[in-house]
């Protein structure tokens, strides 16, 4: 049924339709509306046979999830930013144990300086944690991906992180086609665990493993993610059969066939990029975009195949690996190993900075003429940066950087006004 609703609401409903058995969460913006919605649904009895647990921290949230998943319950939680970092030890533990927990990450920047707005630093910080990470482009897809995530997680016995842009998606009202319970039931069978804490057949889970077997256990974690590369498109196809729409998959090409310049990005910014590309195409420019839906596992061959004709690639990412540059870009380079292509990294949208069509036009055109630096920070205010660098060169006790910059910005504004 078509609905006009908030992204968080759509996700909460999709999770509810997936018949979760244990939900545990700790509030953090911009994840709050999702778990508030679920809490209410459980309390009202709209979700039957489900326990909702208000925990005392994100670390506890993931720990409760570990316990309930190991005891055989379909388990869901959600977090963002500092919350994801606070639970990290348990995040690794969940994947190490192979527990099919589904978690929404409402992508948000990481502090300091504290910042509640969107970028991808949080989930990128966990790119090696062993979870599958899939990114939603729209609220429709966010809802759909959650339903797919339970299936994917449970078939592989691996946890799945569904990443959706905080605020930009979670707090946006748009049209969503909500599936029916019958459809979801036809798509998603009840959870049948590979391992379970059951008094009728006792097992020990989580014992220490020494050098004699640790590599093998880790290799199998990798092998499972390689299996996911095949399973993700399959599940997406099954989804289409029942729900009648494209959602998920490994990558999403747009205007790619003949494109000389190809932009690569993840998440909701793909929409703005597509609109920009339409405008550039109208000007006769040969440009396209490749959206990455599955960041872990990283679809190396799908990307390599999609980019075979491209001359240059612009990786536009909402994350920064301090000290080297791009995170996604590094992986893209790996996928294109041995191919002769220019690769530009554009770091954009950090801490919620708007990514506008006009800025995209500018960098895409610079790249087309091969005039872009290898690592570019979109819309960076150089005067402010240089002022602080200068202050640090000349003053020993130069003070806290973030506060200095805010003061400089305030002055710059009042000078204009």
């Amino acid at each position: 049924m078509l609905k006009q609703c908030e992204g968080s609401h759509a996700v909460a409903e999709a999770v509810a339709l997936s018949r979760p058995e244990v939900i545990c969460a700790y509030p953090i913006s911009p994840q709050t509306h999702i778990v508030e919605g679920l809490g209410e649904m459980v309390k009202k009895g709209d979700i039957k046979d489900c326990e909702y647990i208000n925990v005392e921290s994100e670390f506890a949230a993931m720990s409760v999830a570990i316990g309930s998943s190991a005891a055989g319950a379909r388990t869901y939680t959600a977090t963002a930013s500092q919350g994801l970092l606070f639970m990290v030890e348990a995040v690794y533990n969940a994947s190490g144990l192979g527990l099919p927990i589904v978690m929404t990450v409402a992508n948000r920047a990481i502090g300091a300086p504290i910042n509640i707005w969107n970028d991808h630093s949080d989930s990128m910080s966990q790119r090696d944690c062993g979870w599958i990470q899939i990114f939603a482009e729209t609220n429709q897809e966010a809802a759909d991906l959650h339903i797919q995530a339970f299936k994917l997680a449970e078939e592989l016995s691996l946890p799945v992180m569904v990443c959706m842009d905080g605020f930009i998606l979670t707090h946006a009202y748009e049209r969503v086609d909500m599936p029916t319970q019958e459809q979801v039931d036809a798509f998603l069978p009840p959870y049948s665990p590979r391992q379970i804490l059951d008094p009728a057949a006792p097992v020990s889970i989580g014992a220490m493993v020494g050098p004699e077997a640790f590599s093998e256990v880790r290799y199998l974690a990798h092998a499972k993610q390689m299996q996911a590369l095949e399973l993700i498109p399959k599940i997406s196809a099954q989804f289409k059969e029942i729900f009648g729409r494209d959602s998920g998959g490994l990558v999403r090409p747009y205007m790619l066939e003949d494109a000389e310049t190809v932009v690569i990005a993840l998440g909701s910014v793909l929409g703005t990029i597509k609109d920009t590309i339409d405008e550039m195409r109208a000007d006769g420019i040969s440009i396209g975009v490749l959206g990455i839906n599955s960041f872990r596992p990283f679809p190396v061959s799908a990307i390599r195949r999609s980019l075979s004709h491209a001359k240059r690639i612009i990786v536009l990412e909402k994350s920064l690996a301090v000290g080297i540059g791009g995170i996604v870009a590094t992986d893209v380079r790996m996928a294109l190993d041995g191919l002769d292509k220019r690769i530009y990294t554009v770091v954009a949208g950090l801490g919620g900075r708007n990514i506008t069509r006009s800025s995209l036009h500018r960098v895409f055109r610079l790249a087309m003429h091969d005039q872009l630096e290898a690592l570019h920070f979109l819309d960076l205010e150089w005067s402010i940066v240089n002022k602080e660098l200068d202050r640090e060169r000349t003053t020993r006790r130069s003070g806290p950087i973030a506060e200095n910059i805010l003061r400089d910005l305030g002055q710059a504004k009042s000078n204009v006004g």
Partner: protein
Amino acid sequence: MFQVRIHGRGGQGVVTGAEMLSIAAFLEGRHAQAFPSFGSERTGAPVVAFCRIADKEIRLREPVMEPDALIIQDATLLAQIDVFAGLSENGYVVLNTNHTLEEMGLAEFAQRFRAERVITVSATDLSLKHVGRNAPNVPMLGAFAAVSGLISLDSVAAAIRDKFSGKVAEGNIAAATEAYNIAKARMEAAHA
């Protein structure tokens, strides 16, 4: 694509206003996207929300920088921020005030726009009268429906019922209806 920017202060239902506008458009079979300017704004702080309405899927995620219409829920913002930024000469403005444009010192400014597209309505008073609290967002939508002709009053009423129920819904619908009628009358007066 039609783009609306709503200005107001925390506590005035700015975000809810944008959401209801998107629901009203949705109910008329259109695509709509509403989103706030995401701050941790507390009561009283300036807040902005956006709504886009189109006949096909809306992919754009940037904030509305060149609005086709402005809904200004709090006139005191005029002195504080450039609420009119990016508005084209064919744009629409609905301003919440019980003063006239002349009294606001906006007469000259308003000349840049088409007279029947710049309308004031005392939405705060209407919400106090019909709902019993300062919630100008809903009557502003009623006035916007009249001024822009983009959505019908019926759709606004349906969107109100989507968000509220019972007495609150009915009070809001009454406020929106009165605002709609006031705006219609003022548009005709401006034409004349």
